[in-house]
């Protein structure tokens, strides 16, 4: 029997995994994926809450918007990554250390 808590736990795990990925991986695309994970964690929360706690559609709507925006964001992100690759010939994050005082 799934309960709200289990959803929350899953989303939390997603969230943390996302953070770890963002922090630990050196591949920029992977980092973008990590961000996606975090967004999905949030979306999952919304749906779960609207299912168990608040019996209205706000959560569902919100999660839909999240999906859309996540797509847009990752699109832009990837575009920039491609430019980066064209310039630096790599998508290794450590190469992005040109800007500093």
């Amino acid at each position, binding site marked *: 029997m799934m309960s709200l808590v289990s959803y929350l736990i899953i989303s939390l795990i997603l969230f943390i995994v996302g953070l770890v990925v963002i*922090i630990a991986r050196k591949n920029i695309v992977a980092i973008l994926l990590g961000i996606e994970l975090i967004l999905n964690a949030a979306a999952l929360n919304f749906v779960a809450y609207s299912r168990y706690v608040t019996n209205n559609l706000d959560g569902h709507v919100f999660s839909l918007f999240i999906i859309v925006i996540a797509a847009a964001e990752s699109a832009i992100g990837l575009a920039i990554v491609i430019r980066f690759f064209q310039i630096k010939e790599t998508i290794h*994050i*450590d190469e*992005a250390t040109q800007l*500093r005082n």
Partner: protein
Amino acid sequence: MEYTVGNIAPIILSPVIAFVINAFFGSKLPRKGDWLATLSIFISFIFSARVFGDFVFGNFATDYFIHKTFTWFDLSYGANIWKVDMGIYIDNMTAIMLTMVSGVAFLIHLFSTWYMDHDEKHGRFFTFLPLFTSAMLGMVISDNLFSLFCFWEIMGFCSYSLIGIYVKKEKAGDASLKAFMTTRVGDVFLLLGIVALWMTLGSVAYVDIYAAIAEGKFAGQTVMGISLATFTALCIFLGAMGKSAQFPLHVWLPDAMMGPTPGSALIHAATMVTAGVWISLRMYPLMVLGDITWFIAVIGAITAFGAATVAMVQTDIKAVLAYSTLSQLGYMIIGVGVGSYNAAFMHVITHAVFKACLFLSAGSIIHSVHEQEMPKLGGLRKYMPYTHFAMMACTLAIAGIPFFSGFVSKDRILGDALYFGFMAGQNPLLAIVPILGFAGAGLTAFYMFRMMFLTFYGENRMGHHDSHGDHHGHGDHHGHEIHHEHLDARQNVPLLILSVFTLGVWFAGSLTGQGIVKVFGSKTEWFKILVEAPKVERFVNHPRESFGSTDARVKAELPKAVYVHQTGYAGPNPDEHKIHSAHVIGAILSIIIAFTGVFIAFLMYIKKSINPLASKFPGFTTTLENKYYFDNFYIDVIIKKGLLGLNRFLSWFDMGIFDRFAVDGWAAVNRVLFKASKWFDNVVVDAIGVDGTGVAVNLFNLVLRIVQSGKIQFYFIMLIVVLASYIWTVNI
């Protein structure tokens, strides 16, 4: 006569006017306006003489005085009233001093018109001399310590300018600086004393201070643990020491001879230097109350004797005279200390006359033969008879030979000193006061006659060098052929007039119509009738008078002056006879000593039967020639090493340390903070990030691995860490 503004103001103002005119238009006036200065002094002499006549021939009681005030400025607001009054305080002493100062000043001005002729500084000299005179007169006539202090400082300024008048001479600069600063040391303390008195008594007018003493307002008052009376008395006497060049503040006076001789005659011999004695006399009751008279006496004795010893070896006429001045001032101070009030004052007057005369004579010698080194002079008697006559008279006077003025005053001082030292039951150590005093008297006679003999007697040594005087190295004195002095009235008349005053008048007995002429310092010289220590009781709540109001009492009501001898101010003295005997002994002693001194000098410098000291005690002589090394001590040790060293250190500290670290510190801190953030970015991030070494390694492997990956991710870590800490804090 009425003491209205019109009668008093000219005494001070006419020289001031002369000063102003000469200061601005002197160069345009004929003869640079020296006649104007002289005239102005003459005017103030006339007005002083009126006061003198009114007091001295007017048969006033000894303690009659005029005290009139006007408000200088007023700070009263609402409830608290506070204003500063100025005014005149005239008693017999003031009258006599005024006349002496203006008279001597007039004669010296007259002489200077001859002496300063064709001198490049002619104009400037006659600008400052009248200003000085008016300041001196103002100091004499002023009724309170504050205005006295003002005039006192202005005198100091004039003396500064006149000493340094020959600006081209480096030494003139040193001398003037030294003179001003040394006296300034005393002056600041004087100011301090005045402030202390003013703020505790509410006024510094003489009459109020006397009244306060009588009413015992000083009782229980203390300043920093010392009783107020002692504190203020000491401060004021320190001021006196500065001005009157008492040991150890005496160093400036000999150097002050850099100025033109007549200037020295007026300022550094006759008048200004006696200002210290003057204020000590005015504040005598305070000195007694503060119980520092013994200190005063000792200081005086040391100065009197020490200066005399130094004077013995000087070869420059003016230097000899300068040291003799020091020594004579010492006697006056002794007089104050041992409580022979009127003798001390009398010595001020007599000394002023004969010392002025001596300086003028020296001046006329220097001006005529352009030489002031005694060993190079000699035999001038036949060339300058008038000068010789005048100088001899004054020398006899200063040496304390009977029938001359110096004898009267000095011998009474010594007599009182004798009583003070041996008979008054004081601390036996104080016996040094009379001992040094008498020794000094002998030396005085010796060195003065040494000077006379070297200068006027023996063969003329002009033209060829004398091994003795060489190291004083005054330019070249070849080719000054000796010529008879051409008789210039402006040169000789002042000398003769002054020399007349060295005798005669002082013995005229009572000019006030009682008693007859007596000799040997009899009790009833007119002088003693007129001057006595103030009786403080009679000043208690006497009426205030301001200008315009008529005098409180009419002369007719006043009793005739009756002379009561006394030492100190405290009424008739119990052991009268002791004092009298002391006087007799003193008189005889001083005569003997004086003649011995003269005789020794005669043997040394005329007979040549004894060779001069120098050959006998070379070491002692060099010490004397270096003036006991006081100058070296002050300048090399205290000033150069001490003061300037401290200054340099402080200023280095201020700019080098204080400014650099304490003040630019904040900027430094910011730079450090900036560096820190930079270091955070570069070192922490890169060092830990790039090469895995670093503290973090051993700390926490996971963290290391996490952090390993470059910059933007380090931002993420920061974000999350801070976020976690926020959440943590928020949840508490």
